[in-house]
């Protein structure tokens, strides 16, 4: 899920004609003060990070005027909130709130879920923890959510009758905006009723489906401004994943010493379990894209694995006889071993790779004493046992020396 910052989420809702308070992003205290000068009722300054629960984290400040806004923005900018460095703040007109409610939509199963609560605001966790005045319902994806349904839900949540028609209509419109954004999460907290009885979407957090970014090209760039992993090898693979064409690649570094070059699916999970059960400790988990003529993503992942200073052995394990060409993977390995040289020349490597181009693949590693290309018919478990044994032996030899 790609979490959008509040300015982007609110721009989307505003464009749908929904009641979003006036506001804009600022990257300096001066800019925040200028925006606040145009807000006679006072301003709210919020840290712009892609995370919820900012009120609790002290990242939402109320400012009476431009001067106070400058101070609040100066304090927030450069601070850290929920693990993100605050580079921008959101400056929004302050709404005189009569009552605060909570509404969210979530999609992580066959049917979208709607949650609404009579009470919202900073302490919404307490409210959601109880069953009183909180309503959860599944939505039929074909039928959607109509205002008749949403009014009934708000009545069930105990909302006073006078406000139900307006908030019911708004909820149905928000559901449409949720679907149109390909959102997996849309949380409105608080959904406020102001002192004149009007509705305002005061807090809005939205996370969208990365697989749907082809429909939302403006947000695809947003992913680039998200935080990258601090580990240089993980960062390298994350950047390759964004910049290069082809299926997804991932690399997660762990605390062990046996590198795993596996696909993205079940066989990778199975081999990771096996290495652990056999007494080995994986140095990473990874996802590599299906083989194609462009091997750059594969190379980025394998390069990261080989650059891990803790690495003591490598298992290249894929499931049997799918159509993937084995020679592309083995050529990538050989290229990287030649490039990196040094300790990789003695690194125990086990290859369990059967399928198209296999004879060529075996020929490419002939004469490399550290590379063990297991015979056809070797099971995934036997290959995992071999790398665990080779690494244990190498360590024992070193201790003896």
């Amino acid at each position, binding site marked *: 899920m790609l979490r959008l910052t509040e300015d982007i989420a609110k721009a989307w809702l505003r464009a749908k004609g929904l009641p979003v308070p006036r506001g804009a992003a600022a990257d300096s205290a001066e800019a925040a003060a200028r925006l606040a000068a145009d807000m006679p009722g006072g301003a709210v300054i919020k840290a712009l990070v892609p995370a919820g629960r900012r009120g609790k984290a002290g990242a939402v400040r109320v400012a009476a005027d431009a001067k106070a806004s400058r101070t609040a923005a100066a304090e927030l900018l450069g601070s850290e909130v929920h693990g993100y460095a605050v580079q921008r703040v959101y400056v929004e007109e302050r709404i005189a709130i009569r009552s605060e409610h909570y509404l969210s939509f979530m999609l992580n199963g066959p049917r979208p879920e709607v949650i609404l609560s009579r009470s919202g605001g900073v302490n919404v966790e307490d409210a959601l923890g109880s069953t009183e005045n909180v309503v959860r319902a599944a939505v039929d994806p*074909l039928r959607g959510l109509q205002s008749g349904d949403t009014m009934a839900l708000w009545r069930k949540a105990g909302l006073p009758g006078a406000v139900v028609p307006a908030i019911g209509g708004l909820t149905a419109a928000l559901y449409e905006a949720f679907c149109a954004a390909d959102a997996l999460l849309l949380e409105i907290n608080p959904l406020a009723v102001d002192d004149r009885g009007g509705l305002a979407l005061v807090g809005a957090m939205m996370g969208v489906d990365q697989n749907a970014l082809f429909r939302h090209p403006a947000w695809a760039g947003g992913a680039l401004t998200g935080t990258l992993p601090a580990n240089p090898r993980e960062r390298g693979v994350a950047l390759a994943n964004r910049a290069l064409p082809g299926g997804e690649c991932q690399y997660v570094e762990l605390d062990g010493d046996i590198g795993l070059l596996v696909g993205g699916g079940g066989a990778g999970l*199975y081999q990771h379990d096996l290495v*652990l059960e056999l007494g080995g400790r994986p140095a990473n*988990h990874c996802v590599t894209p299906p083989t194609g003529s462009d091997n750059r993503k594969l190379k980025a992942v394998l390069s990261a694995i080989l650059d891990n200073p803790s690495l003591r052995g490598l298992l290249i394990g894929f499931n049997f006889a799918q159509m993937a060409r084995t020679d592309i993977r083995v050529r990538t390995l050989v290229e990287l071993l030649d490039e990196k040289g040094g300790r990789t020349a003695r690194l125990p490597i086990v290859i369990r790779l059967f399928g198209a181009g296999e004879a060529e693949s075996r020929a490419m590693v002939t004469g490399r004493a550290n590379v063990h290309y297991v015979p056809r018919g070797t099971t995934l478990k036997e290959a995992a046992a071999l790398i665990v044994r080779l690494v244990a032996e190498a360590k024992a030899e070193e201790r003896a020396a």
Partner: protein
Amino acid sequence: MSILVDRETRVTVQGITGGQARFDTEWCIRYGTRIVSGVTPGKGGETVHGVPVYDTMRRALADHPVDASVLYVPAPMVKPAVLEAIDAGIRLLLVTAEYVPLHDVVHVVAAARAAGARLIGCNTNGVISAGKSKLGGVGGIDPDEIYAPGRIGICSRSGGMTAEIALALRQAGYGVSTSVAMGGDLVTGTTMAEYVALFEKDPDTDAVVVFGEPGTDNEQELAALLRAGGVRKPVVALISGAFQERYPAGMAFGHAAAAINSSDESASAKRRILREAGAHVAQSLEEIPQLLRRALNGN
């Protein structure tokens, strides 16, 4: 018999003129699949490996009645293509595309269910009834090397693992009635429990092997079916991904669907829940035939 596909199943291929579709179509035909037509808008009148191509599903169906459609259309086109097939009356669909937006997935899954159609996938490499017919790329150019005809059903969250399971069975003298890769996405057209229920009704299947991963409630739903007495045939389960429990929740390992959202969705919890419901839980591929032998022969 078998489930989902057999020698008589007549098949159309949506997106037949693409590279992967051409390749798979050739090897499906060689295996015995009755591919009678293909559909690619704008390519009507062409042929692919002798199969006539039509611009629309309705025109294809006017010339050749079909029972199933295999969709090779790219992820952005899955929703309109599936809806077109359902509207045309097709009641078995197999969607190969990966990375289909989740809103589209839940829509087409609900639409298929409402129409009484069965949707396999998305993100599946196919279904094979050994020795009879196959849909999709499963088995590659030599399915016989892996899938020996026999009486064991396979249902797997992972396409690659269906091959490993079939090989482990073959080495122990077992064969496969039907093997289906259900797809590893968060939401699939058909659930693991539904596939197992189909195998339960198939007179040519004696036992079922399932492969599961962390994430989703597929295995919990299967356990509920077992507890309710809905399956009399032995079920052997291999569930991978227990290593994830050593690391903080929410850490991404592989497919997005294989993330643990609640404690019931971990591999260990799934193994326990299935074992308690009467399934035979294997620790490795090698153990699968041993458990089958014990369950089928009582020794």
